[in-house]
């Protein structure tokens, strides 16, 4: 932990999901207040690890995203509160700034906005822009000062704390953010506290070499955070952090924003559709009628049922049982499909 590193935290602040998460009917409820105190303890631990560690926190709110705290702005701002003799000053600044900006953002939410999709993409791209600036500035300043000193880049990473289900409409932007994170060599960690498994965030963690953790005990959040997400990626090779048990590579189709595991792909532009279409909606390519007939014949019987919901509705598409897709009538080409390999059924039920 010699080298300073940068951590960007994206906090999902969806009011409805946090309400559900805190319900006492859950096995291990985690109300927002308890979550925040554990999160702040983790953030304090991060800045305490190294004097030069930097931090930025983004809030993903319904329909928007906001910067809640950043080390760069904290240095400039004058804290008006009187000094607290029992608290380390940096912690004090961090905690009060976080709480202040968070309550400002939540108060600013109107009733209409509460139902709009969460601004995860916005906060993710903002944190990437921030990291881009932080890394760029550090290289340019060292070159002007003198090149004899090795460039110390704050080793950047992003931690996404998510409670909301996947937003299928944001598939392409999320994937674009993942690829830019790969380009910047940014590790994306995902901590899923509540809600169904997130397909996109699984892929994000897998592609950038981070960890995706679905919490079994949300009330023990702080332990997960400190044991898994506090050490920087360079150190994680030496300690054993929990790994992802499987990665779901499903994608969202372009036509109805369903999350599909078998799709129909245009050979020109690679657009994904959940059912055979005569004309590609993206590049206006017309497909031969023979292919359509062939694909319609072999199409899974489930597809028409999906297409009846043109409005993107993430939760039903998400919870689409995979077993349903497996139990479909076999196409002619498959012949001796399942019975040939008994070992797989065990894997599929997990």
């Amino acid at each position: 932990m010699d080298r300073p590193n940068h951590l960007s935290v994206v906090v999902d602040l969806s009011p409805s999901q946090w309400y559900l998460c805190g319900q006492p009917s859950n096995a291990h409820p985690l109300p927002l207040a308890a979550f925040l105190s554990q999160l702040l303890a983790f953030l304090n631990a991060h800045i305490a690890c190294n004097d030069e560690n930097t931090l930025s926190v983004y809030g993903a709110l319904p329909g928007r995203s906001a910067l809640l705290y950043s080390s760069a702005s904290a240095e400039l701002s004058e804290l008006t509160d009187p000094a607290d003799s029992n608290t380390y000053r940096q912690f004090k600044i961090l905690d009060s700034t976080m709480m202040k900006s968070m309550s400002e953002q939540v108060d600013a939410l109107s009733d209409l906005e509460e139902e709009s999709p969460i601004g995860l993409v916005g906060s993710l791209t903002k944190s990437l822009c921030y990291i881009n600036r932080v890394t760029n500035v550090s290289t340019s300043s060292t070159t002007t000062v003198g090149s004899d000193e090795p460039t110390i880049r704050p080793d950047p990473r992003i931690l996404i704390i998510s409670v909301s289900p996947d937003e299928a409409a944001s598939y392409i932007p999320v994937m674009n953010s993942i690829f830019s994170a790969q380009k910047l060599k940014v590790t994306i960690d995902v901590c899923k506290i509540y809600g169904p498994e997130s397909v996109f965030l699984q892929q994000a963690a897998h592609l950038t070499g981070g960890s995706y953790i679905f919490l079994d005990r949300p009330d023990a959040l702080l332990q997960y955070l400190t044991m898994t997400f506090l050490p920087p990626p360079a150190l994680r090779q030496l300690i054993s952090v929990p790994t992802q048990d499987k990665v779901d590579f499903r994608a969202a189709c372009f036509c109805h924003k369903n999350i599909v595991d078998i799709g129909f792909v245009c050979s020109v532009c690679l657009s994904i559709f959940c059912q055979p279409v005569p004309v590609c909606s993206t590049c206006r390519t017309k497909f031969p009628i023979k292919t359509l007939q062939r694909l319609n014949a072999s199409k899974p019987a489930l597809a028409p049922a999906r297409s009846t919901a043109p409005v993107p509705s993430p939760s039903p598409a998400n919870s689409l049982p995979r077993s349903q897709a497996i139990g479909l009538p076999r196409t002619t080409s498959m012949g001796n499909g399942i019975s040939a390999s008994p070992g797989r059924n065990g894997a599929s039920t997990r």
Partner: protein
Amino acid sequence: MPPRRIGNDYESDSEGSMFGDIDTSRTKKGKGKAVDRTKSAKAKGKAKEQPYAWEATYTRSWDTVQEDETGSLQGAVQDLIARGRRRRLLAPAAAIRRTIIRHLVLVLDLSTSMMDRDMRPTRFDLMLQYAREFVNEWFDQNPLGQIGVVGMRGGVGERIGEMSGNPQHVLKHIAERHKLEPGGDPSLQNAIEMARSSMSHLPTHSSREIVVIFGSLTTCDPGNVHDTLDECVKDKIRISIVALAAEMKICRDLCDKTGGTFGVAMNEGHFKDLLFELIPPPAQRAIARTTGTGVGNPAADLMMMGFPTRLPNTSPPSLCVCHSQLKSEGFLCPRCMAKVCDVPTDCDICGLMIVSSPHLARSYHHLFPVKPYHPVKTLEDAPHLENKCHACATAFPESPPPVTAATEGMSPLGRYRCPDCHYDFCAECDVFVHEVVHCCPGCGK
């Protein structure tokens, strides 16, 4: 054909002339004529007014540099950098129909002329280094493409690497320098024929391209190279050439007639720029659309693909269907749940094409580009007036700088506004969003 020495001279001092005295233009013109004897008379007439395009680009660029009130040049230099970055963004973002499944043969010149030292350390070493970077970047942007490598040496074409979709395989072929030691003369015809034959079996919906890095000023061909050119036009093979010495008529013809690009590298940086301009997928030719109005592109097809689930190496081991080996990691076919070792592949049980969806998603930013941001001229009529960049939270300059050398596409306030969400971004984030992220932080799409 001019003697090679002259070509090299003018190559090596081209960099100097960029920043050198203004008066060199006359002597340069004379040299240019000596070199470009192969050029047509029309080109020469044009050359009288403006001998080289790059001279025009850099002419009197120092005039635009102005000191600020403290006598520092820093502001002006940053301004120039920002302008250069933004220029790339101003290119039209309309062409949506691009070829995504690409096949490319990289033809490397391995003749003795590659040992010239006008580019450091030698043309050959620099070419190898850039070729490796090119392959990496190319696969990054064209994940479904394939690259083959052909060398030109000793008057023949030499197959260095077969067509492969794996960047590691391609890199391995061009990794060993001693196997590629330059020698003899290059033969454009032999190399292009070899590249053409290796692409003849490909399906018609993929693009076929040849990229030649050419350092020589001669080509030693067994037959008529123009016949080869006609064959390439017939096969719809696009040839692009990056020349390291000077322009040759045959090279220009090869590129122009097949729809490729031709460029002569002025210096190391320009060489890289020319090469890397060939990386983004080319817009598909309009011929396909005009010929069959009802049918559209006959090669286009709808493909059924499955997106697998990846099992980690900690899962309980089971037999894979491709090698019948007991393994923990693997991918599950979404239709029949068979376990295969690698993607992309066709499922051995049900025949479904299994691809990793991130592979497909890598090319989507070409389909849905971010709208270019508009430079903000005044602070009025702003829906959200923030004093910080919406993306990276850097503060904007308080007041507009006194020297308003703002040209087209530059904002004197350093603000660039998204046409959709009307948030303001700084110049750095503007470039970063459009070149890397491909997603506007304000609108989230």
